[in-house]
């Protein structure tokens, strides 16, 4: 059924990717990079879904479907986020997240 690669390898990779995304989201100051970090998190979840489906439940397709939908949703999310980032750039002349701090507490 599998090509000799144990399931743990994929799951560890996915987890590393997810937390790399979390780390990037928290530490980066550039809005586009933050968006990329979120995409990384979403893609790591896709790996999870596909791997679970392939290794644990090979008779069905739910995991594959879910990851397809996640890809589509991530694309639309990126489209809206980038549109708003362009608007931010026009308003603040910068896409540094520390500039968008007019409202606090």
């Amino acid at each position, binding site marked *: 059924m599998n090509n000799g690669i144990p399931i743990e390898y994929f799951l560890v990779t996915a987890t590393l990717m997810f937390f790399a995304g979390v780390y990037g989201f928290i530490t980066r100051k550039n809005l586009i990079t933050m968006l990329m970090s979120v995409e990384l998190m979403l893609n790591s979840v896709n790996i999870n879904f596909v791997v679970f489906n392939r290794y644990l439940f090979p008779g069905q397709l739910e995991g594959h479907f879910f990851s397809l939908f996640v890809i589509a949703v991530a694309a639309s999310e990126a489209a809206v986020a980038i549109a708003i980032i362009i608007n931010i750039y026009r308003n603040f002349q910068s896409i540094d997240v520390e500039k968008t701090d007019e409202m606090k*507490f």
Partner: protein
Amino acid sequence: MNLENFFLMRHELVLTIITLMVLIADLSIHEDKKYKIIALATTLFAINLIIGFFPSLTGNLFGNMYKTSDLQLTMKNILNLGVIVILLQSVTWLKTDENKLKISEFYLLVFSTLIGMQFMISAGSFLMLYLGLELATIPMAALAAYDRFRHNSAEAGIKLILSAAMSSAVLILGISFIYGTTGSTYFDTVAMHYSNTPLQTLAFILFFSGMAFKISLVPFHLWTADVYEGSPVNVTSYLSVISKGASAFILVIVLFTVFNSIAMIWKPLMYIISVLTMTVGNLFAIRQQNLKRFLAFSSIAQAGFILLGIIGASEIGMTSVVYFIFVYIFSNLGAFGVVSVIYYKTQKECIDDYDGLYHTNPKLSLVMMLALFSLAGIPPVAGYFGKFFLFTAAASAGYYWLVFIAVLNATISLYYYLLVVKAMFINKNDQPIAYFKTDVPAKIALIICVIGLFVIGFYSTIYQYIQSISFGL
């Protein structure tokens, strides 16, 4: 499957058709006459509201991916009622010059988020829930950034979309573990295979974090105040009432049907989060000067009260949650209605600006007072009954300390709601907001809110009907 089965998703289908009609109308109407879309969209939505109340068949569609029952139909009707009030309130704002060319965008975005919420409420699988949640969130960010040339609005938009994307990533990580351990994303199958193994507990906590973000429960509430303050007033009221209400509805359904086998895990979690949410929301609300920010923190505190009904995990608990949100829609929309009317006439939204409002605009002050009394839970208005049933639900499950803390919090909240009432009725002001006439649609919306506040409280059939369709653990 017969074609008639599609009528089960009547709410979503009618709303989709309306959205397309508004889109086509926008293409065919000349630029100078775009304001006609306001009347068109509001009328179409009113028709949708009425169609929603017709009795309907219930059942499942698409192999249990879509479920509908009387409970879900009632939830959708409650949301529709709230949206029509918001549409009426936003007419004044949409008629201003800067919005002249993008009126239809507001309606398209509001309708598509509403479609998302209705699919989310009817979800029978985690895939449907996730898609509905995203359809309800992504256009919402565009709505928050609607005022293109105002810095705060753009800032609110980016804060909403980035934190929403982060939280939904956490949510689907949870769903992926649920899928990995149970082999299905359908609610029925997942419920059969769910137990308190460590991985499944982790999966539940990740899933719950994602949902808690949408309802702005306390460790996940930091986006709320900024987004509420920056968005246009009518979008804020949409966010705080409809979006929050829909997420609370689906959370109740999912907790009671899918995660019922691990109730002993989520009950202590709810206990802690409920106490934290009420306390933090209240304490931060006290120090706010901006009314939108003030109402944002008050809505966080109200979310803490909603958990009180969930924790009982009984039929009364679910009834009280649905009933409380129904009441909360009218009380919060009343308050936001007054804030938006005054903001778009005078550009003022601080509590100090409201000093002496009663002497110049007595009717608006009275509506605001009733709405705030309802939020605080003072007897003659419906908010009192909503809180009372929530407390009953928690107390009947034996959570006396939690009810005690909630009562303390309700008292604290009374203090800051009364600060606003005091500003309007007692404080002296040399230059109060001058007298002005409220536009007719906004006036109708406020009248609906006031009628709602009294009728829902005293007309007990509503509560009994909700109780007859709810279920416990």
